[in-house]
């Protein structure tokens, strides 16, 4: 009787856990910066849906909220709400350096019309909203996208 109960519990927990594992995958974002010769860049990574509507943020490189208004695409979408980036904020990225971010993302983000945007800003230099915009697709994994100002190239792999 006891073994039967244990088996039932095991079956239920397995049933609940396996779909979660199957619907998520580890995704790595690699961003290489150009040697633009300025201070460290603030970078906002966020996702929009097929209609261009903001869905959520994935990472914020740069910790001071007062500079976020210079990441104008992200700022317009979120109103500068720092709650959007709680737990996903890191340091700004210096000229010529690279940032590698590893995230466990829902598989539903891929091949469903979602786009990843990167806004960038550097002190005393021009802001660069939508520095990188790439569709999130399985085929796009490992393909480098070129940035328009401060980002040399960006790649995601899953």
């Amino acid at each position: 009787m006891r073994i039967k109960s244990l088996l039932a519990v095991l079956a239920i927990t397995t049933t609940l856990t396996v779909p979660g594992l199957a619907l998520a995958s580890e995704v790595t974002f690699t961003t290489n910066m150009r040697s633009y010769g300025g201070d460290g860049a603030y970078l906002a990574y966020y996702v929009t849906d097929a209609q261009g509507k903001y869905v959520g943020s994935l990472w914020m490189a740069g910790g001071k909220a007062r500079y976020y208004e210079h990441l104008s695409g992200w700022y317009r979408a979120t109103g500068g709400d720092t709650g959007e980036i709680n737990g996903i904020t890191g340091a700004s990225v210096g000229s010529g350096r690279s940032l590698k971010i590893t995230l466990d993302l829902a598989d539903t983000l891929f091949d469903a019309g979602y786009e990843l945007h990167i806004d960038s800003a550097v002190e005393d230099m021009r802001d660069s909203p939508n520095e990188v915009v790439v569709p999130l697709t399985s085929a796009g994994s490992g393909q480098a996208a070129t940035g328009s100002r401060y980002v040399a190239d960006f790649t995601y792999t899953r």
Partner: protein
Amino acid sequence: MIDRRLLLAAVAGTAILAAFASQALPLDALRCNGTRNDIVKADYREHESKGDRRHRDEDGRYTANDRGRYGGDDDDDDDEDEGRAAYGDRGAPVQQNTNPPGNGLFTPGSKPRAQTN
């Protein structure tokens, strides 16, 4: 019967410890005013000097920390770094954050990691 006594003893002990713990104060708070005024913490002076420096650049004009332009706060106590270094390239080797926001993009319970090279 013994189990009940043991349980009661454990509950009483925990209650006493919790009561003491709730009274815990930082050592600074226990010092009297006279003593506290005599002590100037090293990091306080350091903060002052950094605060002076961060508003000027080589030309003497205000930099990005100018409140008028950027609307920032004067108090950097809760910030990760100072002055121009906010935009600077002080990348930590590995940053592990806590829990990401529940925006439906992340796997619940996952921990994002970032590395700057």
